[in-house]
Structure formats: structure tokens, C-alpha cells
């Protein structure tokens, strides 16, 4: 009987896979119930467009989750996007755009009965698609190895001092997220040294009072802090030392930083009372940094307010904010589902390649190539949005 034709890949995980082209032995022609090739092509075209609208909706829930969590918890995204490698993302975008071009070109060749051109373009699309999957494979294995995963399994290496958090291989200079609390964060792991336990006393004309020292807070100063009394944040600058073994290398106590606004008036005197046993010998380095000597009389002037960039860098040095795993849940869902669609595209592309080699496609019958190209452009379209949303966060 005449070879029927089908128009798209109804796939999605677990739902089995229907083929794309027709597999009748009869040379490709018009299905019985269609009037002519134009009728068959237009029906298929309409069918694939409905399918593409449905695919947009299929990804909708993930975009909603993304927008919600980015809007409500921007610090998670600001922190976690350092884990993603923009280089690989950009290469992947390029690869997909090339494959999109070759898919569109393949349709053109099919329409103009250029069989060799069609086979060449389809092969380029196939190669690019596999390249895309390979790059995704590289990124995923890196993350799995680094325990940068979703939900409970999110346990990456944390606090690598001034550099960003991309760690390499087994060497995890900082502490594991699961083990670390804000207090014992080692912010300059490659330089062993001192962590100074200090108390801050504020003497104002009316009297002196001891202010609680907040642990290093990586979050933004959200409402959680509004409730507490005004407190001093010992925000470690890059040269702070770690408690424990003292081997005499230089270190500096702390940069005391009074919330986000400048000090109130000059009459306030801040004293830093430090535990003698842990005070290092007089360090000899840059003059403008406060000096801690002897028992607790270190007076100093606060540095100017940190710029947003510095704050950002500082924040990315501290332990990850609460529930950072949400970013990676959304990341793996989005790129995973997109990857599955690319995989389905690869299978279909192989199938089309076989049929192209068999010469099934004529200017009168090139529907499957056109529908596959449309589907492929949509997959590329979704990646065009995924790339900036996930990789290019500022």
C-alpha cells in the first residue's frame, strides 16, 4: 500500500519513540487519504507547528521555576553561576547555531533535489548535535565529580579564598559544604595562619557597650538581620588567617565593617579586644591595614564601603547561601530535558540520513526533512534562551 508518512517525533522520556519517516516499501508518495502532495505537506506542516507550540508549553514549568527562584533568591543565582563554565556554554551555543544552519540548508537542498547536498547538511547537523551532547557530557561529569548536584547531593568544595569556586579534581582546598559552618570558613586555605577570636567594644559619649560579633554572613543583609541589634561584621579580607597551627607567617586581624552605611559620627571609638594567645607577632605589611598588637587596644579606621563588585566577590568566597541546590535542580532539569530533546533529534536525524541516502526525498516529497528542521530550530531556540539565563548571570 502507499507509504504513509508521519510528521514528528512524539517522544519525551519513557514514552517510546515513533519513527519520523515513512517506512513503506512503496516509493515515497502520497498517502491514500490526502488529495495531493501539497495537501499532505500542509497538513504535516500544521501538525508540526502545533507540536512546537506544545513543546514550548512542555518547557514552561521549568521557566516558571527559574523566574520564581531567580526573582526571590537572587543570591543563590549570583553564587551558583560561578560553577558553570561560560566557555563551554558559548561553544555549545555556536555548535547548535551551526547545526541549525545546516538543518535549514538541508531543507533547501531537499527542495531543489540536490541529494548530495542534503546528505552533507544532514551529516553536519548530526555531527554538531553529537558534539553538543559530548560537551554536555563533559560539563555533567565535571559537576558530578565535584558534587555540584541537586537536592541533598549538593556538597561542593567551598570557600576557596579570593578565587572563584571552580575547583579541580580531588584537591578541595576549602571545606566541604556539608562540613562547614560560617564561623570556621577558611578564606585563604593555601596560606595557613591565624584566625583571630575578637570582641568589639563601642565607646560612645553616652557609654560603652559590647557588640555581638556576627559570624561572616555570606547572605545579603536581608530582613533576617533587621531583627538583630546593630552588629559588627568581621568580614575577612583576603589575608586573614586560619585558626590552629601558627608558623609565623604574616596575617592581619580583620576589617570591621559596620553594616552598609558609614560610621555614625567621629566620636565613636571602636576597640578590638583580641585573645592574646592567638595574636600573631607584629606583621610587617601594607600600612593602611589595621595592626593588632598586644592585648586588645588595636584602634583602626574602617576602610571605605565595599563596591558591589567587591561585595559580590566576597560573597562568592563565603559558604553557599541557603538552598543553593535549587539552582542546580533547575539547571539539571532544564539542560537535562533539553538534552533529551537533542538526543531524540539525533535519532531522527540518523533516520532521515538513511532515507536520504536511499533517495526517498524529492521536491514533491520532502516533508520529513522540513519537519525535522523545524523541530531542530525549536530545540536550538530553547538553548538560545537557556544559555544566557543559566550561564550569563551577573
Amino acid at each position: 500500500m502507499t507509504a504513509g508518512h508521519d510528521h514528528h517525533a512524539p517522544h519525551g522520556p519513557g514514552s517510546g519513540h515513533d519513527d519520523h519517516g515513512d517506512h513503506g516499501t512503496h516509493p515515497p508518495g502520497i498517502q491514500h487519504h490526502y488529495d495531493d502532495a501539497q495537501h499532505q505537506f500542509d497538513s504535516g506542516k500544521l501538525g508540526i507547528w502545533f507540536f512546537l507550540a506544545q513543546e514550548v508549553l512542555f518547557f514552561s514549568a521549568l521557566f516558571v521555576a527559574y523566574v520564581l527562584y531567580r526573582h526571590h533568591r537572587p543570591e543563590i543565582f549570583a553564587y551558583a553561576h560561578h560553577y558553570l563554565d561560560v566557555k563551554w556554554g558559548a561553544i555549545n551555543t555556536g555548535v547548535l547555531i551551526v547545526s541549525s544552519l545546516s538543518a535549514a540548508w538541508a531543507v533547501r537542498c531537499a527542495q531543489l533535489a540536490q541529494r548530495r547536498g542534503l546528505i552533507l547538511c544532514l551529516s553536519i547537523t548530526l555531527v554538531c548535535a553529537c558534539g553538543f551532547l559530548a560537551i554536555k557530557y563533559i560539563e555533567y561529569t565535571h559537576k558530578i565529580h565535584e558534587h555540584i548536584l541537586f537536592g541533598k547531593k549538593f556538597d561542593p568544595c567551598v570557600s576557596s579564598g579570593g578565587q572563584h569556586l571552580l575547583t579541580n579534581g580531588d584537591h578541595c582546598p576549602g571545606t566541604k559544604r556539608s562540613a562547614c559552618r560560617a564561623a570556621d570558613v577558611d578564606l585563604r586555605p593555601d596560606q595557613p595562619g591565624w584566625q583571630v577570636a575578637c570582641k568589639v567594644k563601642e565607646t560612645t559619649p553616652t557609654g560603652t557597650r559590647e557588640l555581638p560579633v556576627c559570624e561572616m554572613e555570606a547572605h545579603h543583609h536581608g530582613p533576617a538581620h533587621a531583627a538583630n541589634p546593630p552588629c559588627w561584621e568581621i568580614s575577612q579580607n583576603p589575608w586573614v588567617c586560619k585558626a590552629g597551627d601558627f608558623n609565623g607567617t604574616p596575617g592581619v586581624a580583620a576589617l570591621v565593617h559596620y553594616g552598609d552605611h558609614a560610621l555614625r559620627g567621629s566620636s565613636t571609638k571602636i576597640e578590638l579586644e583580641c585573645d592574646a594567645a592567638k595574636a600573631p607577632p607584629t606583621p610587617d605589611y601594607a600600612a593602611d591595614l589595621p595592626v593588632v598588637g598586644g592585648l586588645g587596644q588595636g584602634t583602626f579606621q574602617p576602610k571605605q564601603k565595599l563596591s558591589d563588585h567587591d561585595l559580590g566577590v566576597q560573597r562568592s568566597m563565603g559558604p553557599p547561601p541557603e538552598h543553593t541546590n535549587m539552582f542546580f535542580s533547575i539547571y539539571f532539569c532544564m539542560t537535562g530535558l533539553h538534552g533529551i530533546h537533542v538526543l531524540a533529534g539525533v535519532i531522527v536525524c540518523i533516520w532521515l540520513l538513511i532515507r536520504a541516502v536511499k533517495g526517498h526525498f524529492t521536491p514533491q516529497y520532502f516533508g520529513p526533512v522540513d519537519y525535522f528542521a523545524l523541530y531542530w530550530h525549536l530545540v536550538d531556540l530553547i538553548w538560545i534562551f537557556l544559555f544566557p539565563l543559566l550561564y550569563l548571570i551577573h
Partner: protein
Amino acid sequence: MSTGNPNVSYFEASHGIKNWLYTLDHKRIGLMYLFGILTALMIGGAFALLVRIELMAPGETIVGPETYNRLFTLHGAVMVFLVIIPGVPAALGNMILPIQLGAPDVAFPRLNLFSFYLWCTGAACLLLSIVFGAIDTGWTFYTPYSLGGDHTPVMLAIGGAFLLGFSSIFTGLNFLVTIHKFRPQGMGWFQMPLNLWALYATALMQVLATPVLGITLLLLFMEHFLHIGIFDPTLGGDPVLFQHFFWFYSHPAVYIMIVPAMGVISDVLTTFSRKPIFGYRFIAYSSVSLALLSFLVWGHHMFVSGQSKLANMVFSALTFTVGIPAAIKVFNWTATLYKGDIRLKTPMIYALSFLILFTIGGLTGLFLAILSTDVHLHDTYFVVAHFHYVMMGSGLVAFLCGLHYWWPKFTGRMYPERIAQVCAVGVFIGFNLTFLPQFVMGSRGMPRRYWDYDPEFAIFHQISTIGAIILGISMFTQVIYLMASFKIGKKAPKNPWGASTLEWDAPSPPTLYNFPEPPEVHEIYEYDDIVEESPDNWVRVNRKGTGTKAEH
């Protein structure tokens, strides 16, 4: 295209189980859907009866709390995913849509078969979950409760619902392209039967809303096994977010259940009143506007579930806009009866009971759209009664109406009229007896999904259970006599009801490609052209051609 001898009925076109399992003929696929759906209806009905018998008296009557929770969950899941969503579109739609268009088949026959096998696999998964301990999360799978407990049954149920979702998407997609591309010459958009408008609106919702169910169940599946934490509050997720995802699909889903039912009723009412429908364009436009508006109102399921005040206000206002098209339809249907020539055959009894039950269902929806009364009525038996009036009282009754209306056409056999009328009245009485007391019980504060309830509600539950038994009996007898009619049913003529749409010009049962020769398209409401030669046998008298007009 399907193979076989094209000029005998599609039953005889080809024989052997293989020709049925690999058929591409929309009629055979529709029939296989029908058997599956009727079986699922019986299974779902059995669960409903067990639930009702358990609720006969407070405390344990026949089952304990765990089994009761599994029973009402399975009743919900089987009825929603297996029976009422694919019911009218997949079973009746597959059967009738191509013939009403005069087309040999749907646009993508192979996709149609693939949808059917998706439905079978999904149904198998859903029912298989019973063997592994069944799910007790309610058919809505609300997190975080659905995240606990043992994983296999929930995984199977979610997998099943996922596949059923895709089956629904592809059926919808198939119908959309068929309606767009396979209308014959001379049948523009406003010369189409209203049933096709309804199926078109339903297909729009199926294609645009069901994928969201797919992604939600996928996320729930991954939440269950990989703990991605998107719905689990301990990991930063938000249970209300799951409800948003779930209801964004599930409200259009309830319109997927009711809009095709309205289409069937629009056709049946005008046939049995022998009078053109009143306000064709208004009914057609209200079907499509229902489809579009259904995407705006999902929040009214979550008025008290932690949704914010602002969202409650917006959703409550929008919910009223959805009520208007439904009201317009009811008024137009009632106006159609005016000055008609009404024959109370079984389909007409169902259509009239649909009219009454849908009015009650729609009006009780007003109670739940109003914010202050919804706070009191939400999650009580008032809601249970409301959605049963709309889903069963209207959706399933219209399914039975369409089943009886087109039974002669696609089986070639008449069903026994007398018994069918008795069963139709039985359904109407049993249904009202079951669910009217639940309205009162609900507004008095009886919460939903309660296995053990306070003694003051006992009287209502008893009446409701008696009603459920009557309903069960009449539904069960219908399946029996319909199946029996295959063997002992009277041979059905081409046009037993004197209907004027295109499918009644095809032989019953239709040949493989529906029409021996391409049909001639007529104006759909020309009832004067159709004359009753003998009881239940109408013939189209071609006034233009022969000029003789048989006297009545």
C-alpha cells in the same frame, strides 16, 4: 492508509486480530478506545461503589483508613485520566469526526494508533500500581505528602498519567489538523456541525495544556527518585508551586472533559427537536472562548491553599468570566427546544438530563467562585458534589448520550430502546439521589476525603450510598445491553434519528473509507428534507432533484 476491502463495512474489511491491533482505520481505533474506556469506567465505578459503601456509616464499615484512601485516589485517577478525559474526544471523536467531515480518515492515522497504544500503556501502568500497593495521595498527587511513602506505586501511577497525557496531546493534535485540512468543499467553518467546533476547542486545550501536566509529573517523578527539591520544602522547594503547576493543566483538563460533552449535546438536541440550533455562532464562539478562558482561572482551586490575597482576587474575578459562555450555551440550548418536534428517544433523555444537571453544576460553581463562601465550602462535600455534577452529571451523561446517538452508526445495530430509556431515567434519579445530599452535607461542614465522619452527617451519607447503588446498577446494565446489541441488536438503518449532519449519509456501519463514493455536502439543519419512511428509518428526500415531497 488502512488496508482491506473498501466496499464492505469496516468490520468485514479485514479479519484477524493482527488487522485490528495494527489497524490505521479511525473507526477501529475508536472502537478499541471505547472498549478500554468502558472497562475503565466499570473499574472506576467499582471503586466509587466501594467508597460509598464504606461511607455508609461512621467508622469502619468494610475497609480501614489506608484502603479507603487508596480507593478514593484510584477512583479519582481512573475516572479522570482513563475515562472522562479520553472519553468523548478519543472514543466518540475518533469514531465520528472524520465521517462528519466526509473524510476517509484522520490526518495522521499512524499517530492515532500510537495515541491508542500510549493510552493502553498508561492505563496498564496506572492499574498496575494497584498490584504494588496502590497510591493514596489523592488524584492530585499534592506534595509533600506524595513524596513520602513507598515509591513504586506512585512512580507507576505518575508514569501512567504521563503517557496518558501524551496520548491526549496527540489525539488533540490529530483532530486539529483534520478539522483544518480535511473539511470538504462547501463546508466552511460555520457550516460544520457544532460537535466539531467543540472537538476543535477541546483539541486546542489538549495540545496547549497537557504538556504542562507532562512536565509537572516529570518533575514529581524526579523529585521522588532524585530528590531535586523543587517541591520539597525541606530543600527549598514550595508545595504551592506544585499546586500552580498541577492546576495550570488540570483546570483546562476539566474543560477538556466538559466542552466535547457540550458539542455532543448541541448536535443531539437539534436532531431530536427537528429544528435548527438556536444561536449557532454564539455556541460555536462560546466553545472556543471557554477553551481560551480556561487558561486564566486555575487559581480558584487554591483559594485557601496558601495562595496570596491578590492572586485570590484576580482568579476569583476571572473565574466569573468563565461562567458566562457556559450560561450562554444553556440558554441557547433551551431556546432550541422552543417550537420543536421533540422525540424522547434515549439520547434526548440524556441530553435533557444533561441540561438540568449541567445547570446545577454550573450554578454551584458560582458558590465556589465567590471568595468568602469558598473559604467555608472549599475541600468539603459541596466541592465533591459540584465537580461530580459537572464531570459525571454533564461529562459522562453526554458521553452516554453520544454513545447511544452514534451507536447505530458505528456498530450497525440498534440498542434496545425501552431498556435504554429506563436506564437513562435510572441514571438521572440515581445521580441526583447520590449528589444532592452531598451539597447539604458539604455546606454544613463535612470535609472531603474523610474515612470516619461525625455522626450528624450519617443520614446524608446513607441517602447518597443508596443513590450510588441505583446509579451503579443503571450504568452496569447499559454496558451489558450495549455489548449484547452487537449480537441481538436490530439492524440499524442509515439514518435512524433523522439527523442532518454528514455522518448519517454514510452506511451504518460505514465502509473502510466511510463513504462508498464522496458524499454530497448539505446545509446541516435542513430537517424538512429528511422524512421518516418507517419508524426509526429516515430518508433524505432530495427536494431540488425529485420535486416530490412525501406527505407526512
